[in-house]
């Protein structure tokens, strides 16, 4: 993967903005930022961002490629869309953040241990597998992602929640075997594979 990264560095040299415009979802909006900071002030998780959205836009313009792509900041986005509705320039900030995170992830330089990045992976594979969420599998997978012991720990910590859900018939304890998804998951896999191919082709990411 990281050879893709070096390829990109080669391709765009010092024009990170151009790279973002061409490869990142809604990236062409970055240049429209008027530097008012309303997005940064509106983010509910703002205090947890090393670099709030506007700063990221400025860093992109300033060509700070590594800082931007390796920061955990974008991974803090909860998709609450506060920034989008308040932005005086109508930048789709949420999507740009998503796009940057995804791009960094695809280049293999996103922070390895970022929990959201890892959860997102698990989640996607979970839904891609059958076409619908398997909540039990999802949670178990999540708890055990750091290995068996810590998994048991987290599992226990969440036990009360899990039990409550099961009691109220809002979590299926047997979902591992009984979960049903779409009729023809294979077909869905084909679609997603094809989609991935096209996207990679457009972004010049060989996988």
């Amino acid at each position, binding site marked *: 993967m990281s050879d893709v990264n070096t390829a990109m560095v080669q391709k765009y040299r010092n*024009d990170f*903005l151009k790279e973002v415009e061409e490869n990142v979802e809604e990236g062409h909006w970055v*240049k*429209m930022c*008027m*530097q008012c900071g309303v997005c940064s002030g509106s983010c509910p998780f703002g205090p947890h961002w090393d670099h709030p959205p*506007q*700063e990221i836009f*400025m*860093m992109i*313009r*300033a060509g700070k490629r590594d800082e931007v792509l390796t920061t955990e900041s974008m991974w803090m986005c909860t998709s609450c869309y506060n920034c989008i509705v308040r932005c005086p*320039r109508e930048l789709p900030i949420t999507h740009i953040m998503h796009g940057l995170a995804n791009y960094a992830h695809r280049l293999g330089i996103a922070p390895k241990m970022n929990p959201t990045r890892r959860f997102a992976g698990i989640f996607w594979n979970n839904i891609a597998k059958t076409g619908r969420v398997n909540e039990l599998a999802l949670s178990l997978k999540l708890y055990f992602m750091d290995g068996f012991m810590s998994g048991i720990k987290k599992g226990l910590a969440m036990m009360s929640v899990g039990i409550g859900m099961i009691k109220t018939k809002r979590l299926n304890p047997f979902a591992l075997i009984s979960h049903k998804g779409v009729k023809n998951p294979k077909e869905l896999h084909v679609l997603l594979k094809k989609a991935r191919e096209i996207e990679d082709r457009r972004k010049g990411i060989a996988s």
Partner: protein
Amino acid sequence: MSEKKTAVYVCRGCGIGNRLDTDQLAKIAESEGKCSLVRQHDFLCNADGVSTIRNDIDGEGVTHVVIAACSRRAKTDAFGFDDVALGRANLREGIIWVRPDTEEARETTQEMADDFLRMACAEIQYIKQPDTNQNAGTNKNILVVGGGVSGMTAAIEASKAGYGILLVEKTGQLGGWAAKLHKRVPDREPFADPVDAGVSDLVKSVEYEKNINVFLNSSITRTSGAPGQFSVDISAESGETVTENVGSIIQASGFSGYDANQLPELGYGKSPDVIDQAELEQLAIQAADGPIKRPSDGKEVESVVFVQCAGQRSDEPGHLPYCSGHCCNTSIKQAMYFKDANPNVDTVVIFDDLRTPGNGEDFYRSAQRKGVIFTKGKPQQVSPVDGQLEVKFHDMILNDEAAATADLVVLATGQIPNSGVDIEPAAMQEVEDGGGESAAQAETETREVQIPVESILNLTYRQGVDLPHLRHGFSDSHFICFPYETQRSGIYTCGPVRRPMDIAQTMEDATGAALKSIQAVENAVLGRAAHPRSGDLSFPSFRREGCTQCKRCTVECPFGAIDEDEQRYPLFNESRCRRCGTCMGACPVRVISFDNYSVDTVGQQIKSVNMPDEFDEKPRILILACENDAYPALDMAAQQGLEYSAFVRIVPVRCLGSVNTIWVTDALNSGYDGVMLMGCKKGDDYQCHFVKGSELAHYRMSKIDDTLQQLQLEPERVEIYEVEITDIQRVPALINEYAAKIDEIGMNPFKGF
């Protein structure tokens, strides 16, 4: 005019009849006021009352009318008799509305009314319907100095209204700065791209307008005269000079670019690839919408940095403190030159505040859409680094020291007005000296210390060769509500000589100035004053035999209306005069007067009041109130039902500048216990509509102290106040405090003498 007949009309309406003994007022008018015709009316401003007056004028040959009713500011439609001399005794706002309706107050209130009526009668005796000025000029042509966008626009617009224009341009062609532009900032929808500068169209219309007579390679070497009758020498480079007569003048002398050589830290002069905005326009014209090449080696520019506020908005020596307003939009436009030719060119604008007011915001957005990058930063240094330029700056957003390299750096430098010689230092000097011999000499001194600047108009005016500057050398109006107010009647400036401006603003401004110049000639031929006393037909006249040639009037006239003749007598240019009366106030021997405003019209009012003797314990306080601000404030205090002392006798004056110290000394001599002068704010942000009136009054009153000492009177007997029109609550308070103070220091010992 037929022989004088004065009529007095006492209104009983609005409670005047109930509060005052109007029969007594009528009697006073007949006996003391010597008025042949006196009528009372229950409702003077209604149709019947008005027609009564009208009939007396038409039928009875009444020439002088005193209306004893409401304030001169009220019911002006009903009482607008402009074919007779008119006086108003303010019984309503001036008396019953500011006095309590009580028994004990009745006597003093009536005395107040009696005196107000006496004053009105006294004044009217000395007022003449102004004769029309014999020296009014008749020339309606307009001289426009400067052939740039502002000059051409002014010429075209005035010509379209049917006026003859002389357009004088010092270079060999019309167009000025704008002719050197590749394109200009858009001024209409969609505000997205640079548009044609439009200069050639302007030049075409100048040629098309047959009323416009163009003088190229020419400048103004002499300007004398007055609105309606200016005489100007237009001298060509060739040396030949023609003398032309015009009715008014528009100075559209534009601006000069700031000399970027004063910005070595920004690399100017160190590399040919550091240029200013004007130089970039040349490169753009050469490129003709193709790729722009850098000066040093003709390489196509792949990256360019624009440095905003270069040598502007800064206190550093040699820098401009102000913002030139247009530069942000101009850099945006110029960045588009690059982007439109080749979107891959890196264009960065380093700014502090990006200033694109109005729809400039759309233009700004359009530039962003085109990929122009805007960075908020403070540039520190521009230096050549192996074949390129490095711009070191502090990134104010990311808060770190950053650097950008570029093929070309464009400095957004400012506009410097071509406003000619700064005459102010000389003038101020003279005011401090109170005029006199030192004046001329002070003038020359200050001239010497000045960097030699070419005069634009070479006025033969006693007060200097050019228009007074306002701030930072711009010849702008000082007034927010009156952008075309000028201290040289009939001469208007427009365009960047007034204020840093872009083309769109300049064209609007030039059109406005054209209107004022037309207005000036139309009023001049009728002998009418220009703003703020627009329509006033009076003009100053003086008794030559009495004059001591002290020159106070010539020095202090705020409008440079008075020159000196060969024997150093004042030479009044009536059409330049704005009727403020500053000269009248200045004259120590009181030889200057207007038909409808003179030392007598006021002096006699002051004398006319009935002065109680010392033991009556009824002080009398004279108030000389500026009619523009203090007097309306008093009216509005009355509207609000605020009370003040019954001992004041109020005389509205055109301006404190017109207050002659004799009024004050006479008042004290005739037994007034105190004098209050109420004028406008003075100083840098002065609000006096005649510029220096309030300031001069303060100066003169400071001199009066000696007189008071000679008379062994307390200095408190004369106080001067800066009053704003909004001091509706403060003015009555001031009066009452002052009345109390007079109570303390006691009666004027001169009573009865």
